[in-house]
């Protein structure tokens, strides 16, 4: 080989190698791409690249009627579909001044919390895979599959549900819903506990994650981290408590927090959140009233008045915000989403400074990004 090997660049004294990770890398959780400057096994700098999954969702929303936008929200954070539907519907309802039937609110909360569990189960699965453990992923996927079977029974689809409507729901729950959830909960509890016991306090897992990519509270707030990533730093901030929406103020649950803000804390907080979500589901099932769930709009197209509204909610990945501008037609004039994954991902450069190559996948996994939401 006569020519200089490509990709070896000199920045200052040590010879660094440019390592392109993604978008086809198995551990970048989709089509995220990082360019790493590595000095041996140490990462000295990182340059994130996003946009490989950009579908122009926000622009597409402007061309769809208000009901049709729900399907687009399903496809943003495709691991937390119900949560995404909820925040969009809440935004339009707030603008129109619609009140949602009591029962519909409870159904929404139950489905959202189950979706949170499913999403966090997938997080634990990929966290284990990133750290090299394969068994927890199987356990978690089994649990997630159980939740998704329930979703299928409710909405007809495993993932892209399109079940919430502006002002209510598409239809009432199936008759045996409570029995199904009653059967699901102990199984789900067992799955979560099994994965938790296998992974969380495993010595090797701790060695890989504890103290890796810790972020201080100030930095976390500066980067706009929300959700479990912020709570891992010890900040007790959860919109379900801090700014209750829907009927979240009627349930008793804790907001788990971490201590050090490192990868392990982010994992730990999510595992604890699953137990808390189960508490909420159980309470909601007891409190859920009978009655109508469909919208007072009936079959009419929603046509909100001229105006703008910002609504936020606690997604599994953090705080999602929807800024909606209406001009009085049956389509949104402008719709802007503040995606939690995108804001959390912005800290990656800060987090990955002076880590190991092996840590990059773990840190990225601990942020729990969904590229569909990052790129939109």
């Amino acid at each position, binding site marked *: *080989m006569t020519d200089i090997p490509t*990709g070896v660049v000199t920045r200052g004294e040590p010879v660094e*190698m440019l*390592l*392109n990770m993604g978008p086809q*890398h*198995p*551990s970048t959780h989709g089509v995220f791409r990082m360019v790493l400057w590595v000095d041996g*096994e140490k990462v000295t700098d990182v340059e994130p690249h996003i946009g490989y999954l950009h579908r122009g969702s926000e622009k597409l929303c402007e061309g769809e009627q208000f009901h049709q936008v729900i399907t687009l929200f399903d496809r943003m954070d495709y691991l937390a579909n119900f949560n995404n539907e909820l925040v969009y519907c809440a935004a339009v309802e707030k603008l129109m001044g619609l009140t949602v039937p009591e029962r519909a609110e409870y159904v929404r909360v139950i489905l959202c919390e189950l979706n949170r569990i499913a999403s966090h189960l997938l997080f634990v699965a990929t966290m*284990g*895979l*990133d*750290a*090299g*453990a*394969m*068994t927890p992923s*199987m*356990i978690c996927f*089994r649990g997630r599959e159980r939740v998704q079977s329930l979703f299928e029974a409710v909405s007809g689809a495993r993932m892209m549900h399109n079940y919430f409507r502006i002002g209510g729901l598409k239809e009432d729950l199936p008759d045996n819903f409570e029995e199904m959830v009653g059967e699901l909960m102990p199984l789900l509890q067992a799955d979560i506990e099994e994965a938790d016991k*296998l*992974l969380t*306090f*495993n*010595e*090797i*897992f*701790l*060695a*890989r994650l*504890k103290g890796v990519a810790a972020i201080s509270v100030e930095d976390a707030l500066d980067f706009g981290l929300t959700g479990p990533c912020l709570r891992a730093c010890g900040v007790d901030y959860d919109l379900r408590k801090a700014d209750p929406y829907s009927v979240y103020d009627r349930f008793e649950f*804790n*907001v*788990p*927090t971490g*201590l050090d803000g490192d990868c*392990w804390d982010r994992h*730990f907080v999510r595992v*604890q959140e699953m137990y808390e979500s189960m508490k909420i589901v159980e309470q909601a099932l007891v409190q859920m009233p009978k009655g109508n769930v469909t919208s007072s709009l009936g079959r009419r197209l929603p046509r909100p008045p001229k105006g703008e509204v910002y609504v936020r909610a606690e997604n599994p990945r953090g705080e999602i915000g929807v800024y909606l501008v209406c001009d009085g037609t049956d389509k949104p004039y402008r719709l802007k989403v503040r995606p939690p994954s995108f804001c959390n991902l912005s800290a990656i450069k800060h987090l990955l400074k002076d880590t*190991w*190559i*092996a*840590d*990059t*996948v773990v840190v990225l996994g601990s942020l729990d990004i969904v590229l569909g939401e990052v790129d939109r």
Partner: protein
Amino acid sequence: MSLPIPLLSVSLITFFWIVAGLLAMFTALSVVVLSLTWLERKLLGRLQRRLGPTRTGPMGLMQPVADALKLILKEDIVPTSSEKAIFWIAPVLVVVPAFMIWVTIPGTENLVLKNLGDLGLFYIIAFSVVGILGLVLAGWGSANKYGTLGGLRAAAQLISYEIPVIMVVIAVAMLAQSLNMVEIVEKQGSYPYVLVFPLGLVIFFIAGLAEVGRTPFDIYFAESEIVGGPFVEYSGAHWSVFFLAEYINTFAVAALTVLLFLGGWSGPFLTGNWEIIWFLAKVYAVILVIFWIRGTFPRLRIDQLMAFAWKVMVPLSFYAIIITAVYLFYGWPPWTLTLMSLAGLLVVGYAIYRRFAGPASQAAQVRARYQALQSRSGQ
């Protein structure tokens, strides 16, 4: 001068028998590899409450055959920017030593291709190091950065863990007063060495896991980080050769564990060459433990791996040699060595582990802190 293999004075008949023997070994090892892949898939499946392969043949028994066929029929891609000669020679360099080791590993007293006598253990250790070269060349020759990283990781890891392996093997050779595999097993007639020298078994097994790159030491082909390491550019038959070598090496580590510590083929009820059943049963038991570990643990990081090698395994293996030497010099009864081994395992192992590797104490610390946190938030 009597060479172990008088190469220049081989008659045609002997030559024929050598070739036939090598072919038989090759076939037997291939069958073993097929059985191991099936066993691994099934066992991992059961650990994860899955069924594992079921569709190909009864209980999925033909799955390894289907896999092998698929791999051979696949297109063999050679990257254009790769160093062709190195790229082609690397799999050979990995797989040939893997087979060569088995020339002198005995199944029973007589069931061995060529008993190299006092060269046996030395030969095995010497050839087990050669495979590293193939991995480094594979990583470098494929002109892929992930491959290069993997190759260099492999070099660092395998050379580091070679030291504890050699040290423990020396200690066992001192106990048996021989490097002859058959003799080492015969010396364990009254009791297997695991009873007098458990420290050796632990060191050898852990270092052996690292040698063959099984979880938690699968650093150099870590799928989630460097996507297969040295093998990243290999496909089809070439990749299957690496795969073959990996499983043969795993089998060799298990076999050596059995031969050096678990009494080899000795066992009740069976005599003569039937003792191979005992040997295989023990080897497969060790293999199952290796697969079990794979189904349970995450992967270490490269710095932790090296720290564990140089700060824990190497000092422990030196300690193993010292206690063996003391035991032999003073001619103490065997149980003293057991005591010293166990004491070493407990005291030195725990102390070094706590001091340098740290995760155990960290786990306890973290657990305590979080329990305190939870009890606070629960109130």
